[in-house]
């Protein structure tokens, strides 16, 4: 079901340009070869628009396919659009000099945005090559996350440039109904984007910080008392948070996982590692917070699994947060094994809470907390054969640690379709 949904989502998004292309081919009277290269430009533009549409991350879509899938396709569409734009630019011609200049500038700006985003915002390179991660961390002192987000928004400027480019090309703009559809595509996407940024936050859940306390040396526990209980909240979910009225923190949206299963007061465990999360040290009790979400698919995955099959919750550092809320919800009803790897002994701040869950579980729950990553031989020892063949594995932590754990589980013989992951950075 999961694969089918994802496939359907990919197909629908990839086919987004089809109506525009069909209408163009129905009305255009250009030579076939030129039509083909203009089509490539149209598909590239529509995919760029579709990528903007995906960045809106609607909750219903996230519940269907998951945020990694949405952002994965968002990035892939960007790459595919650039490839098609390159071929289009190399093989098309126009007598209008301004159209050519705008097309060129749009292409180069898109290329810059894409390269920058692949390096700084996606984990495609930095999560896999350690040296690049070191370079990124060094450069981050110069290019703060907020700078990255603003540079990313340059893609809206790209859209305006390419939109104008198309309006100036006679081989395209002479077809009235095609141009109306082209404008409808553009205005619909920009309208939805504007709605998301300007109107949607007014409808989000709001609350007030009731607890802000350090957890160990590099993490923080923040509890938010919601103005109204959030009945849609499920164990393992996360929200995008925006702290309001504190200029020192800023008004950026950042994702954080809920640590417990309380729908009135939600608690977050925040690892203060990045530039933004370190600023949260100064966040005061009483600060107003806006919460976008809840997002997350862990609980629906748990519900789909056989109720007698064990759940293995593997958390690295603060990655234990969503797993704790899953443990809170299921420790009395399902066989459960929580494996938590921390960097330093004093980072195991939830050891007592986990012990409480274990004691109340009637022997269903096991807890293993250790300093340093889990190794192959150790996991082979800890996990019985039945767990390896039937268990559902939930892995949460920093990106490189999650990828390493996924490889480890594959070597142990865990089928990848039973491994579900959430990465802390994005």
């Amino acid at each position, binding site marked *: 079901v999961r694969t089918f949904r994802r496939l359907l989502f990919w197909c629908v998004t990839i086919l987004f340009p089809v109506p525009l292309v069909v209408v163009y081919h129905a009305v255009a009277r250009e030579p076939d070869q030129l039509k083909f290269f203009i089509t490539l430009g149209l598909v590239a533009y529509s995919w760029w628009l579709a990528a903007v549409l995906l960045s809106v991350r609607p909750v219903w879509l996230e519940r269907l396919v998951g945020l990694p899938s949405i952002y994965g396709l968002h990035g892939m569409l960007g790459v595919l659009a650039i490839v098609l734009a390159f071929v289009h630019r190399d093989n098309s011609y126009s007598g209008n000099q301004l159209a050519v200049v705008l097309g060129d500038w749009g292409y180069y700006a898109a290329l810059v945005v894409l390269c920058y985003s692949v390096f700084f915002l996606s984990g495609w390179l930095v999560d896999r090559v350690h040296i690049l991660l070191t370079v990124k961390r060094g450069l981050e002192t110069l290019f703060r996350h907020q700078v990255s987000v603003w540079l990313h928004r340059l893609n809206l400027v790209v859209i305006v440039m390419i939109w104008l480019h198309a309006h100036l090309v*006679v081989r395209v703009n*002479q077809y*009235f109904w095609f141009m109306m559809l082209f404008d409808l595509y553009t*205005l619909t996407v920009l309208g939805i984007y504007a709605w998301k940024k300007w109107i949607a936050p*007014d409808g989000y859940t709001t609350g007030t910080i009731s607890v802000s306390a350090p957890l160990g040396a590099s993490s923080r526990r923040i509890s938010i008392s919601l103005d109204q209980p959030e009945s849609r909240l499920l164990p393992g979910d996360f929200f995008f948070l925006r702290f309001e009225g504190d200029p020192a923190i800023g008004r950026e949206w950042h994702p954080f996982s809920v640590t417990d299963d309380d729908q009135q007061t939600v608690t977050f465990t925040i690892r203060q590692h990045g530039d933004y999360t370190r600023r949260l040290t100064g966040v005061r009790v009483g600060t107003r917070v806006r919460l976008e979400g809840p997002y997350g698919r862990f609980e629906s995955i748990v519900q789909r699994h056989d109720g007698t099959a064990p759940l293995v919750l593997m958390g690295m550092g603060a990655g234990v947060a969503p797993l704790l809320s899953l443990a809170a919800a299921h420790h009395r009803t399902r066989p459960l094994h929580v494996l938590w790897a921390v960097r330093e002994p004093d980072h195991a701040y939830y050891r007592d809470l986990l012990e409480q869950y274990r004691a109340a579980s009637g022997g269903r729950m096991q807890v293993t907390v250790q300093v340093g990553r889990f190794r192959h031989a150790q996991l082979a020892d800890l996990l019985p054969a039945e767990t390896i063949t039937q268990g559902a594995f939930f892995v949460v932590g920093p990106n490189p640690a999650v990828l390493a754990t996924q490889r480890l589980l594959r070597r142990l013989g865990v089928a990848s379709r039973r491994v579900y992951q959430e990465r802390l950075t994005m």
Partner: protein
Amino acid sequence: MKARIKLAVLLTLVTAALAVLACVNLLHVRDSL
């Protein structure tokens, strides 16, 4: 309420933009003849 007003403003802007673009597109067609 505030959100509804904002939504009305946004929809008006999008509709107005589409109407202006329809005129622009008609001019394009006239120029190409």
